[in-house]
């Protein structure tokens, strides 16, 4: 074993010396764009490869947990190689901007392609894809006329029939943050308490499992993200007969369905901000939005782009148009509320 270990040690030293290759700066204006993304490679790479093919600009991608990425950006400060930060959930987008990690940019193209409510008013981040969090129900047991709003699910008539995602997941937190911005602390606390009382079983740590539980009959109604529904239908077209989608809060004055975003912003110390901006503009264009959102069953932010056929089949809906920043900055308060109410 000793010679083997010596060999391993020597190899280690050799490899350590040969650091993973780093690209040198290009002389021409096709400078590479460096992206830090919490959207995983599998979902992002096809779009990035398309960009490189169309424009010849190399993209260097680093993926990691969104919060870890923010800490990394903060720690790197002015020497960060990142030009663009792509992350998920309005809370994270707000926080990145709030910490001064992103720089404000104004662009006519971006303003045209992305509606007001889906970008930072100061231009620090822009939404790139949309996902909705709405009500799903068992069509065999529930008549859609019984459903109306998120708040109505707190009604005692749903006792023992409701399935919800854990309060530790940002999706739940953003939904509650939206309710907070609409109704204030007291009423939201009441609503969430009602939800907790109506739970059919312990909260779920996965939206897919939640939807499968509705299909299996463990509960009759639940709240989940639409793209998990899309994925399940994609795998088993019969699934849409087992679990049906209901757009929440569509009535007059009810506010519209809760919408969350994946988005990106140019970093404060970007070395290639022009390249990053060009990329953002490209990905918000009609052409790219298709590819970016179709495989993932999200909705495009660009209002002129059609959604994936599976997504389109769910029909149009009225989206909540509170600016995402407002919702995002309420995330910490939403978490405190969830703790107080005992929503785990």
């Amino acid at each position, binding site marked *: 074993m000793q010679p083997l270990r010596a060999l*391993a040690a020597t190899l*280690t030293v050799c490899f*350590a010396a040969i650091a993973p290759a780093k690209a040198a700066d290009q002389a021409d204006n096709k400078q590479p764009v*460096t992206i830090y993304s919490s959207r995983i490679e*599998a979902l992002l790479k096809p779009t990035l490869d398309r960009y490189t093919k169309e424009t010849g600009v190399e993209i260097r*991608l680093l993926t990691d947990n969104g919060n870890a990425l923010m800490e990394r950006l903060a*720690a*790197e400060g002015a020497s960060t*190689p990142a030009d663009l930060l792509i992350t998920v959930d309005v809370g994270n987008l707000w926080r990145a901007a709030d910490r001064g990690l992103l720089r404000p940019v104004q662009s006519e193209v971006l303003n045209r392609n992305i509606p007001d409510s889906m970008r930072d008013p100061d231009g620090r981040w822009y939404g790139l894809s949309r996902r909705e969090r709405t009500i799903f129900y068992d069509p065999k047991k529930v008549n859609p006329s019984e459903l109306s709003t998120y708040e109505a699910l707190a009604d005692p008539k749903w006792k023992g029939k409701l399935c919800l995602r854990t309060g530790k997941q940002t999706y739940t937190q953003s939904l509650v943050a939206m309710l907070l911005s609409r109704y204030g602390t007291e009423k939201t606390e009441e609503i969430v308490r009602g939800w907790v009382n109506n739970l059919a079983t312990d909260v779920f740590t996965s939206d897919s499992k939640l939807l499968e539980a509705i299909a299996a009959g*463990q509960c009759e109604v639940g709240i989940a993200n639409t793209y998990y529904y899309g994925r399940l239908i994609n795998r088993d077209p019969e699934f849409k007969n087992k679990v049906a989608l209901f757009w929440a809060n569509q009535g007059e004055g009810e506010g519209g369905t809760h919408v969350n975003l994946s988005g990106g912003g140019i970093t404060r110390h970007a070395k290639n901000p022009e390249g990053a901006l060009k990329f953002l503009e490209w990905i918000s264009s009609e052409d790219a939005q298709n590819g970016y959102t179709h495989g993932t069953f999200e909705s495009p932010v660009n209002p002129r782009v059609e959604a994936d056929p599976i997504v389109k089949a769910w029909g149009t809906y009225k989206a909540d148009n509170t600016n995402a920043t407002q919702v995002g900055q309420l995330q910490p308060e939403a978490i405190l509320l969830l703790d107080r109410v005992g929503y785990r």
Partner: protein
Amino acid sequence: MFALPITLLTVIPLAVVAAYFVYPQPDVWAHLSQYVLPRVLLNTALLMVTVGIGVLAVGVPLAWLTAACEFPGRRFFSWALMLPLAIPAYVLAFVQIGIFDYAGPVQTLARAWFGSSRAFPNVRSGLWAVTIVLVMALYPYVYLLARNAFRTQGRRALEAAQTLGYSPRAAFFRVALPMARPWIIGGLTLVLMETLADFGAVAVFNYDTFTTAIYKSWFGLFNLPAAAQLASLLVTFVLLLAAFEQRMRGRRQYQVASAYSPRIVLQGKWRYIAPLSCGAVLVAAFVIPVVQLVIWAAEIWREDLDTRYWEFVWNSLELALGTSTAAIVLALLLAWVRRNYRDRVSRWAIRLSTLGYAVPGTVLAVGVFIPIAWMDERLVALARLTGFSGYEILKGTLLTMMLALVARFLAVAFHSADSAMQRISRNQEDAARSLGLSTPEILRRLYLPLLRPGLLAGFLLVFVDVLKEMPITLMTRSFGWDTLSVRIFQLTSESMWERAALPALFIVMVGLLPVMLIVRQTEQVPGSTS
């Protein structure tokens, strides 16, 4: 004294985290103390107790069976029982839920046959669900270390016990078990530290432990100071645990004159109970999860398997081999220091060096990254004077990654090496010196051969741990450099569990060979053939 440089590896990241202590956060603490901490503290304590008892109840008897006894299938089970180590705990967790939950195949079948599946226990949340998964994932630590203990303890003590009138069972409990104490306590400590630091598995079960509070403060409430303060509390607790462990070891001597011991051949019903119980554990902890992973991977491998996988495998191997080697070398040094220097500074240096294991992964990753980024900024500024135009010198290199990983896993290597070190008697060392051997020669010709099982065990444990590790690998790697664990993280973070089955299976396959080879190697007891 010599231990200090090694200690710095762990202490610097921890100091960075602890530095945030100076910003008091009364509001967050008020909220946490009222609504969060009481519950998570209780949960964490309960979990540590149940998991601790669980791994002892599973690991120690199995170790005894495969180390000291002979029964059909012993050779196979000796190494096969280590296999559950290759599956990340939260993958096990998800598999358990996938199979046994309400909408899963087992309960659905039960409802089809019996009309209702109410009799099924709750496998999706709660203490027992988490305990089962963590016990299955972590018992190999206790198993391997206890096995080393039993394998090297020698027959003399047992024979002496029997001549004094103890029955074999009494001899086991009153002689063999106490003599194996450092190993068992070492393995238990590793398990408890891993339980404290774990976030993945408990998150799948929505079981709130102390790490939940840390992550909530940091990533939810965006309050890094509060999170750092909580993490510092955790570290303090672990130090207390380490001191307690020290006390438990006692001042006893664990040396043996001759380590050779023939196996106890099992007779009668025990001949069948032994392989059956080994088989049951193996099936539950390894076979069933792997079968589920294979089923999932079979659905999607065509779209996911590409040439990049060779790259992932190679990178994982590279990282794991390098880190294990470095870790075991440093652990050997630390064990040597502990043996020969009993002063306070050394003792504390050693304790601090092994803290990295109990700190939640992402916290340590950030703690490691900040100093690296800081140093890089200065080094790059210096290098610019010579015309260097890049942005990174230290960041993203393999060396930095390995140092960070060693900071995390040093505890694992250390406990194996240290326990093994206890077996070497002063007499042997004195004899070697009297024969004129210098210290390096003593190390090479006396210590290394005797320590081999322990060092190999440590090497294996660190190797598999690095294969599975995620937060530090993610944080310290460079662009386009991915490992199998990075792949798993990405897919599971998007809840693509079925697709994550493919890299998970690769980790199992990559880990299989070292497990087989190394456990076989620890079979050979040094001194028995000389």
